């Protein structure tokens, strides 16, 4: 039924069908290359990641600090020649797109060396974009995608946008929740501490005053009798 319907379309022009097949495969396939990790960066520590990349590739590094201290981290990125292509200090979140000019190992590091007692949870997403098309004029050659394939492409692109958006909101929520929980703890500790101080100071004041008068009284008492 369905198979024969598609088959009759393919029979007319094997070349066109083959090209459409390859294009569908390329476009419906998941995005080329990318790693997203969430890890803990201890205080006064640095963690580096390396990736080997070809020349002319477009990549994006997104990172966000989810919890810890002032929710900030130092980040820098070096190309294979050791040149610093990105450097930021005490950033909470950032997005760095770049097109590689040199082939080799790219290094990016997150540093928490400025912090002495707060360890940070850092999320990063290193997306390596699609390589330039194998055949530069491939997009010109394909004159008509079948409806199903073009629907496939549209849905895939939309879903990628949804996933990106979802990840963005998930991280913001995680960060805000971390702050709210910190705040809650701090309010509790401060309230208890303040109450204790209140008692100590007020009772102390009365006792101190009493002690002043007791000493004087004893002195004048002795003088009296």
């Amino acid at each position, binding site marked *: 039924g*369905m198979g024969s319907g598609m088959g009759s379309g393919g029979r007319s022009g094997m070349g066109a069908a083959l090209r459409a097949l390859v294009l*569908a495969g390329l476009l419906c396939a998941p995005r080329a290359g990318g790693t997203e990790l969430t890890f*803990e960066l201890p205080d006064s520590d640095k963690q580096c990641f390396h990736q080997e990349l070809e020349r002319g590739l477009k990549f994006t590094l997104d990172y966000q600090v989810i919890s810890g201290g002032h929710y900030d981290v130092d980040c820098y990125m070096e190309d294979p020649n050791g040149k610093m292509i990105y450097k930021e200090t005490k950033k909470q979140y950032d997005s760095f797109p770049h097109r590689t000019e040199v082939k080799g190992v790219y290094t990016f590091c997150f540093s928490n060396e400025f912090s002495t007692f707060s360890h940070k949870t850092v999320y990063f997403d290193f997306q390596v974009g699609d390589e330039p098309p194998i055949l530069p004029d491939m997009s010109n050659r394909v004159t008509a995608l079948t409806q199903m394939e073009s629907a496939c492409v549209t849905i895939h692109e939309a879903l990628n946008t949804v996933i990106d958006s979802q990840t963005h909101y998930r991280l913001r929520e995680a960060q805000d929740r971390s702050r*709210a929980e910190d705040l809650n703890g701090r309010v509790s500790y401060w309230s208890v501490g*303040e109450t204790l101080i209140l008692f100590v100071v007020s009772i102390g004041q*009365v006792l101190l005053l009493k002690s002043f*008068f007791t000493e004087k009284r004893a002195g004048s008492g002795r003088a009296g009798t």
Partner: protein
Amino acid sequence: LALYFHIGEREEKCIIEDIPSDTLVMGNYKVQRWDIHKQEFLESAPGLGMFVTVTTPSDEVLLSKLYGPQGTFSFTSYISGEHVICLESNSTRFVALAGSKLRIHLDIRVGEHFMDEFVAQAKDQMSEVYFSLEHLMEQIHHISKEQNYEREREEKFRKASEETNSNILWWAVVQTLILISVGIWQIKSLRDFFIAKKLV
């Protein structure tokens, strides 16, 4: 070619994955050891393996296995929350061996059943579109699960905020009452004291 990073030979490196329940997580890694004599990373070190430990948010161990220098591990979460994936080498060498480090190539995929192999094997255009559609359906399913989990987390967040709010209010009231009652006590106590000392 995946991302790689360096750790000390006896160090443990952990990755946190905050995922909804019933989510499949697949990871594959490759580990290389630094050879001091050759001053480079060996392609394969004999006997080198990695302990992979996965802990659930309730501190239960979901997976704890020793794999070789190259391996693939996977697990399915049954509760939502922060799962911790830890990697540690099985090296029994003394820690004092300076300059020794490991290079770990790591790739972790969450929620996606990788369809690439199936798409490549597709016999005709129809089954290729079919597999692509399956992949899209998996993606949508995963998005839906993430959204449900997000709802749970937002509720926890809202509870924490509301608790903070009522905490602040309650403590303010209690402290004001304590302040007033302590003030009254102070004045009464001093008045009685001065009367007793015949100063008033």
